């Protein structure tokens, strides 16, 4: 069979103006230059992140040198007397205050946050989910100073008039609730901190709960588990690492929280067993006394405290993010703290 002859190539007919059009496209060399320039530009932006961390570390270490040389780390953070006027710089009351207020906040916030998260992921009727998550997000958007304002004028009187007398009457035998009920004090700080960290812990917990695969829930249900048993057995159990991460992230936030705590903790550098007593946190003492620090040593001691706070919150945040990451496998959290 004879094949049809291959037709000769058609002569190139270039429409008038096409040559001109082709020339107007960006020639290769120039675009490579622009590419490089753009890369350097955004790289510089990226490097700014590293620069900021570097600057923070540099500044904190430099300005705290005086205090570090004078007191060292051990003596500074185990001394219990903070009296700058007399030249006494013992920072233990602040460590105590920071830890106590944060732990108290977690004790209140964790069960509530997990409850909200479990409710919205496992039990909530679908039309309610949007509004509830919106409202929780709104809680996260309220600024610290507004929380503090509300805490001074609404929460503290509430505690003073109702809650503290109640606690003193029924639980006063533990030395946790002794002393005059001022309203202001460690308890108020713990409560307002709890309100502030609930949105963080519950959003992150919700994310890790959602990441538990559906077939795990079905496995439990098929064995005849009630809904709560199913949640306990397959959802919470599977997500527990991530939940711990969420809690630690909340802890990180509580440790560094400044304004609301400063407004209701009483600002007294004392260590007291009672939750009714006033206290002082690392962030609060810096906020209150930094502009009033009269001499270099005072200032340096405050920066020393800031350095410690910085290191602690960094470590806590890293641990938390690692834990959450192992459960959600690298998908970045929606919550920016």
């Amino acid at each position: 069979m004879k094949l049809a002859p291959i037709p000769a190539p058609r002569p190139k007919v270039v429409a008038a103006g096409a040559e001109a059009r082709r020339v107007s496209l960006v020639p290769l060399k120039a675009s490579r230059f622009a590419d490089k320039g753009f890369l350097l530009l955004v790289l510089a932006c990226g490097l700014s992140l590293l620069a900021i961390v570097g600057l923070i570390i540099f500044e904190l270490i430099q300005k705290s040198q005086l205090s570090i040389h004078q007191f060292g780390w051990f003596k500074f953070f185990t001394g219990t007397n903070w009296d700058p006027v007399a030249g006494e710089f013992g920072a233990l009351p602040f460590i105590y205050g920071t830890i106590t207020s944060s732990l108290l906040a977690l004790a209140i916030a964790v069960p509530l946050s997990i409850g909200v998260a479990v409710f919205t992921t496992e039990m909530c009727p679908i039309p309610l989910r949007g509004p509830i998550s919106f409202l929780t997000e709104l809680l996260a958007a309220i600024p610290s100073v507004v929380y503090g304002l509300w805490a001074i004028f609404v929460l503290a009187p509430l505690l003073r008039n109702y809650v503290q007398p109640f606690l003193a009457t029924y639980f006063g035998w533990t030395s946790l609730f002794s002393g005059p009920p001022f309203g202001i004090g460690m308890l108020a700080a713990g409560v307002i901190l709890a309100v502030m960290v609930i949105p963080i812990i519950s959003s992150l917990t919700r994310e890790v709960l959602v990441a538990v695969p559906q077939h795990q829930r079905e496995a439990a249900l098929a064995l005849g588990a009630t809904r709560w048993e199913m949640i306990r057995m397959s959802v919470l159990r599977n997500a527990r690492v991530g939940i711990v991460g969420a809690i630690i992230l909340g802890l990180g936030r509580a440790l560094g929280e400044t304004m609301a705590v400063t407004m209701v903790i009483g600002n007294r550098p004392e260590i007291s067993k009672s939750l009714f007593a006033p206290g002082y946190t690392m962030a609060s003492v810096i906020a209150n006394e930094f502009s009033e620090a009269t001499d270099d040593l005072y200032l340096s001691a405050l920066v020393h405290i800031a350095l410690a706070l910085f290191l602690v919150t960094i470590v806590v945040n890293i641990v938390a993010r690692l834990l959450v990451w192992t459960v959600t496998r690298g998908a970045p959290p929606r919550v920016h703290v």
Partner: protein
Amino acid sequence: MGVGIEVAGLNAWFGATQALYDITMSIAANHATAIIGPSGCGKSTFVRCLNRMHETIPGARAAGKVNVGERDIYNGTSAVEVRRRIGMVFQKPNPFPTMSIYDNVAAGLKLNGYSNRRKLDEVVERSLKQAALWEEVKDILKKQSGASLSGGQQQRLCIARALAVEPEVMLMDEPASALDPISTSKIEELIFQLKEQYTIVIVTHNMQQAARVAEFTGFFLMGRLIEFATTEKIFTTPSDKRTEDYITGRFG
């Protein structure tokens, strides 16, 4: 000993979409019944209605009469009770990864209040033997998690977990479709042995499997039960043309 299942006028919906239309069939006690049909025909939905798992999907519901033994599972029995008495094995093995092999098998028992250590040991051993997994895991019962086993072993673990609570019926939703041929044949052997004591309903898209394992077969198409008869009859002389078309591979 297994019980029979009487299904009468079963309908099921996903939201507004109807998935099952008036299913009526009798599932014989102590026999294996296969449910076959093309993808999307409703066979999984049907089986999930038998232990009231269908309604766990938001928006899904089912209506009709399903009598397991003497009990109407849709009227007067709580869903939790129903699922306690009917065991289910899923397509993808789903052992609890945070629990050891032992705890996986014992999970259903612990839910029901058995805490006696010796009783648990006994039941765990018996169930694992029934699932033909005992020899392979008896030394690592408490040392390894349920998820550390191979796919085929995981599925047998899930079967052991379901058997531990001594259900009256065992439902299997394509139990071997995620497994390799050797594990598949092990599972099929298992079903043969389990038939003596339990009523088994097995969903499968593999017709050879249905032919090997089940005495009765039901053919589903688009949410309806087209034909239900002995496996032999379905595969040699089906009454309905649609059944014949499916069997001979003209579709699905």
